[in-house]
């Protein structure tokens, strides 16, 4: 469960996120749709406790991001599109490092990594250094790393950006599996078809504010294509 209440984040003079509120439930994929620079990444970074909000708060798995950051961190898996890995470590070592920091004991950690690598089709590459991996394989390792502690909440910031079709399919399958397991998933993207494909409910974010939110059906009640809704809403704001 993720509840965001009046979240605002300012950098000097720039207001990146302006009073954003929404809620995502377990077993649900909640989409944040917006152009580049709309405030999606900043919102997710605040939820991930990497940035502190200027005002407002968010409750993640029952913990406040402003007051209980460490407990929030234990509850989330955060994946971003430009996340990096330690090139000189193997895929397994990269994931194990995070598992150990999450406090997973050795045998549990080994088992968990085996399960994740099997799901993500990384078994053969597990003990190779990640430096020469393809972008898709690196992103899969990032996903395994973020979810090594089996968190109830997943924060995915454009997790499929720049990946080829096969990799996108593997990541999508993984996200749907997590949904079936009852995890709360927040998925951001600037590509409408992706959101359409995966998300149960969507918030459209523009210039730091949410300008529309609802289920896919609600947003598409007029039987318009989702893309048209998105462009109309954004266009309306521009005028």
């Amino acid at each position: 469960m993720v509840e965001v209440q009046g979240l605002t984040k300012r950098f000097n003079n720039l207001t990146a996120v302006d009073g954003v509120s929404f809620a995502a439930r377990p077993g649900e994929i909640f989409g944040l749709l917006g152009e580049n620079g709309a405030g999606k990444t900043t919102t997710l970074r605040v939820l991930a406790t990497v940035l502190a909000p200027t005002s407002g708060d968010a409750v993640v798995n029952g913990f406040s991001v402003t007051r209980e950051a460490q407990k929030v961190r234990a509850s989330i898996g955060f994946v971003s599109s430009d996340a990096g890995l330690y090139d000189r470590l193997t895929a397994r070592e990269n994931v194990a490092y995070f598992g150990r920091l999450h406090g997973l004991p050795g045998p549990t950690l080994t088992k968990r990594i085996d399960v994740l690598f099997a799901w993500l089709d990384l078994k053969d590459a597990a003990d190779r250094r990640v430096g020469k991996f393809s972008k898709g394989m690196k992103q899969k390792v990032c996903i395994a790393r973020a979810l090594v502690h089996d968190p109830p909440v997943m924060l995915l910031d454009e997790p499929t950006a720049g990946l080829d079709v096969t990799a996108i399919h593997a990541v999508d399958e993984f996200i749907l599996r997590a949904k079936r397991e009852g995890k709360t998933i927040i998925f951001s993207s600037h590509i409408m078809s992706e959101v359409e494909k995966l998300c149960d409910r969507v918030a459209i974010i523009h210039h730091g504010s949410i300008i529309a939110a609802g289920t896919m059906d609600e947003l598409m009640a007029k039987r318009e294509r989702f893309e048209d809704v998105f462009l109309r809403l954004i266009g309306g704001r521009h005028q």
Partner: protein
Amino acid sequence: MSQSLNFRHAWIVFTKELSDTIRDRRTWWAMIILPIVIIPLMTLIGPRAAIKQIEDVRRTKSNVVVAGAERAPTLVQFLEASGQFNLVTADPATAIKDRQALAVVYVPADFEDRLRQEKPAQVRVAFDASDQKSSMVQEKVARILIAFSQATVTARLQARGYDPNLLTPLAINVENVAPKEQMGASFLGMILPMLMAMWSATGGLYAAIDVAAGEKERGTLEAILTVPVSRMSLAVGKYLVVVVSSLIAAAISLVGFAVAFKVSPVSMVPGQAATFSLTATQIGLIFLVALTLSAFFAAVELAVSSFARGFREAQTYLTPITFIVIIPWILTQFVSPADIPGWYYMVPVMNGMMAFKELVMGLVNPAHIRDTLVFSAIYVVVALRLAGRLFQRESVLFRS
């Protein structure tokens, strides 16, 4: 955000960063190859070249022109009898410039007459002071001319029936009472503090850049900040890796130096067969001082590195650190430990170098060691606080 230090977390970070560092070729270069290769080069080949030049001049006959040789047969004969010179014929005005001779002796036309009249005869020696060999030959020529002068005095005194000893009231013998160990120690006291400080500073440089600025550039920093680990634990784990790298480099440079000294003690102290040994206590204290230097540099380097946006920026900021090491060394290299003011032991880096110097020379001054350790500890805590704080500031973490 929690700031408390969790030792288990710091240890996990430390072991990961250490294995990552060990797999980085650049670290090997800075930590092991450079100290192993450069020290013997610096300490063996450098002085050896200088010694070879000295020996060359000492052993071989040097070319000298006597301008007006025909007017001073006695002097020419004396110079030849010394067996140290080849008297060559060349234009005195250009002989030195053209490298035909290393010194020119100008003899006046009335040289023999003035000798006979027992009046001073003007002899001029020309040489090139900017050329070390020419300077040494000039000294050789001057010694022989003085000997010629004394022989003439002796002859004159004997002709008058006086004892030549009349003019030598004192027989002066200069004696070096410093034992061989101290001769070695004095030289080492000059060069070792520099080497140890240098490698304490540069040994951990790449590790510092990699674990902070590198983490930012690779994009792994954001991921690591979403793990329930305090930023102080992260900073401490990374800090320890930098300290360990510095210490290894310093230790290797010390070992390399000791080996070089064993192999060729003479080349280390020109003209002197010096020996050198340290007690276990001294070695222990030297490593304690090396630890404080490494601890200080590591904290500064980590603070700077976590402030930088990426590898290159960190490298640009941190390269001057080698010059910072050289400044206190230049100020103190020729100062004897006895003349070092007490406050030197309170200045960062300088105190470590001074303590090294004392320890190498066999002096264990508890007050100085205490000041060095206490003040270094204070600087380490301040620098580490700064590094830890930088790890918590959003503006620094996401500057790109």
